[in-house]
């Protein structure tokens, strides 16, 4: 892991790909994201962390055209993002979803082929007439899709239905599908959620490999070790506002970040005395609740 870590630091950082300026998203009276600035450069992995409900996914949705920011603008390669998600994908931003959204009843290969949609042109008439151009494009798409499946290690399962893949492989397939649209920026929304440490490590390697292809990556994650191993820069979002941005060490050591995640001691914080008292009371309560085993499930 340390070897890859060193390459991270030395990776070439190119021009700015994504530039979000003052993005604000309001839903009625609720401000989910307030005045967030974020840039992502080519060949860079940027992490976005924050406690649950901080507005990370909302911010992601603003970047992918699912939501149109109430204020501020998102520039992608110096152009303002179009307001529809399919146009955003065509412009070069691909994403994965927090709760996997594969096309469950299509095969693994077909899922990746759907990802090729924006990079192919064949329309209805071409499909009906089946000229040489159609066959060429179809063959090229398949070839590229198989390459991507090989890249994520799913080439042997190309004919399986997506729904039948194990969880970790579904995540990988989602990444392959996103890569099929040949993006310049890949947005990963909690790519390791629900994975065991081993799978997480494999995903880490995969993300590095994608970065090495010159694709910028913005990743939301709760797994801190994953984030700090991976990212060149980390931005912390708390209650819709960007609290901090910096490299792993800066963020890791910042008190405000720890406070945002764990809460901070308030004025009348309980001293050691009170803590002991509470613990004793809890121990007592435990013995009484044992009598009602049915309650266990409610927690």
């Amino acid at each position, binding site marked *: 892991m340390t070897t890859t870590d060193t390459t991270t630091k030395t990776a070439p950082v190119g021009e700015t790909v994504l530039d979000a300026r003052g993005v604000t998203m309001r839903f009625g009276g609720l401000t989910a994201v307030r005045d967030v600035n974020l840039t992502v450069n080519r060949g860079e992995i940027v992490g976005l962390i924050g406690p649950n409900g901080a507005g990370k996914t909302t911010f992601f949705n603003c970047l992918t055209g699912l939501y149109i920011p109430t204020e501020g603008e998102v520039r992608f390669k110096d152009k303002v993002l179009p307001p529809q998600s399919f146009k955003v994908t065509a412009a070069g931003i691909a994403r994965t979803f927090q709760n996997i959204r594969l*096309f469950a009843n299509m095969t693994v290969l*077909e899922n990746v082929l*759907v990802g090729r949609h924006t990079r192919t042109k064949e329309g209805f008439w071409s499909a009906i007439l089946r000229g040489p151009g159609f066959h060429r494009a179809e063959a090229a798409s398949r070839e590229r899709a198989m390459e991507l499946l090989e890249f994520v290690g799913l080439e042997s399962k190309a*004919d399986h*239905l997506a729904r*039948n893949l194990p969880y970790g492989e579904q995540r990988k397939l989602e990444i392959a599908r996103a890569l099929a649209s040949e993006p310049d920026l890949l947005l990963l929304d909690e790519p390791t959620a629900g994975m065991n440490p081993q799978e997480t490590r494999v995903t880490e390697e995969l993300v590095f490999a994608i970065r090495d292809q010159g694709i910028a990556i913005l990743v939301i994650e709760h797994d801190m070790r994953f984030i700090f191993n991976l990212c060149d820069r980390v931005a912390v979002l708390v209650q819709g506002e960007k609290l901090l941005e910096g490299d792993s060490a800066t963020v890791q050591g910042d008190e405000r970040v720890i406070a945002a995640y764990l809460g901070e001691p308030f004025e009348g914080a309980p001293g050691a005395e009170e803590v002991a008292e509470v613990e004793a009371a809890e121990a007592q309560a435990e013995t009484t609740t044992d009598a009602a085993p049915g309650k266990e499930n409610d927690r």
Partner: protein
Amino acid sequence: MTTQTTAPGIPSTPASGPATGLIGIPPHLGRALATGGGALTVVSAFLAWTWTSAFPGDLTVYGYPGGLQVLALIGGALTTLLCLSSYGVKGLRWLTPAGADGAIKFAALATFATVWYTVLAITVDLGGVVNLEPGGFVAAIASLAGLLGALALPFERPEREPHDPDDTGWELFRHRLRTGGDIAKAAFAGGTARPVGTLPSYAEILIIVAVLGLGLTVFTYGIGTEYDELFIGFLIMAAFGFAALNKAGLVSQASQITARHQNITICGAFVAAAMFPFTQTDDQYATVGVYILIFGTVALGLNIVVGLAGLLDLGYVAFLGVGAYAAALVSGSPSSPFDVHFPFWAAVLVGAGASLVFGVLIGAPTLRLRGDYLAIVTLGFGEIFRITANNLDGTSGPDLTNGSNGISSIPNLNILGFDFGAEHAIAGFTIGRFANYFFLMLLITAVVVLVFRRSGDSRIGRAWVAIREDETAALAMGINGFRVKLIAFAVGASLAGLAGTVQAHVTYTVTPEQYLFAGPIPPNSAFLLAAVVLGGMGTISGPLIGAALLFLIPNKLQFLGDYQLFAFGLALILLMRFRPEGLIPNRRRQLEFHEDAEAPTVLTKAGA
């Protein structure tokens, strides 16, 4: 979405008890009994079953099976052959690649049901058991013996779930019912067929030809059944017989072979369909044939919209109506306000074009809706079309459609000097008016099948399926959802319009009442959707077979009268309960509904 199915290849065999039959006859005796019963049924088919020809089908002749006796003969022969195959008789073993016992049970059941249905029908129709000749008794006893023997064949009993001693009487009853159901299911279960080895390709093509020939024979027989009893007997025999072949593993082997040669199979199916008019002596059943084709073609067009793109369209019949009206208006009919007579190719373009325009007009505002809302809006548009056509009669609106009288006396088509209204002699066969239109309609069906196949297996088809599966994810993949859905809607509409142009000429008259949402006569929107769902969404053969059944059954069972729609509803509920993926399941959908069943986890060919 993230549900994992059980790993493939691990057969879910519950710890099984001793393999015994359903009834307490020793298995070897049972097998012999089934064989003998089957053989005796074959013999009995040659005897007289009743003394009078008052019962239709003339079952009074010795030495020559007639009507329902032929069905009994087929059932008996099937049972006997399967039994012989289970004995391992050389040359018959190929009949049962998935094990014989389940198949024998179904074959014996088919024979038993057909024979006893006949015997009971004779008894009831003619008023008493006295009307049965000895042959009838022989057949009844033989088929019963065959069934009993078949039920004695051993099977793996599922493990009994112990019941909770605290259960109330009702819960105990339900538990017993469930256990009984499990046992019955296990008793009739078949194994998985061994995969077909590679045969020389000419042999595989011969097999395809044989399968298609069998299909044509069965279908022609079904259309040609002349009285209710025979048709019911045919349905019983066909349903259980198909189940028997399915359990024997022949169906899965046949579908493996046809999947290897899809193009040949489709061409062959069209050739077989084109043979149909030549098997008929008069034009009577060609009428049925052409109506089935119209119905089936429109259902297939709907399948693009519903099966591929997942847009529930409840007013689809309106597009058929638009096409038919457009063709009728330019057909030179005296009741058309336009005094023009377009050639057929131009009429087809007008019909399909008009439907396309309507499809886009209706689709553009509505396709932004999802799910149920779209269904309700399309339902409304279907009715609006009918009411508008009713009102454009010159009094409540401009004179365009001649109101509820419709556009009548539409002249017959004449393509390149070929008059569709006249009889033609082709190779010694007389081809009547409806048979002419049958061939034309077959051509249209071929076009629709081509469009369905080619568009389904392409970038646009994958986009449709992706939209159906998960619209948000599809948008995130760069698919312009609205545009792609509009294309599906427009393609479906113009295909229906295409069928409508022929329909206008076949029926002579186009009236608004032909294009209802629901009614006893197909095609209407509800029946179209039913044909798609019943046949199997997303497949080619499914809607065609569904349409054939939905047309034939009400057409043949006239005696049901007012109960027709009731019976239809009942049948649909039962089918959706026990086979939600339709008669011809798309492999995707089979996996969807039977997650842990023996369904394959690997999909080799996409779609149908």
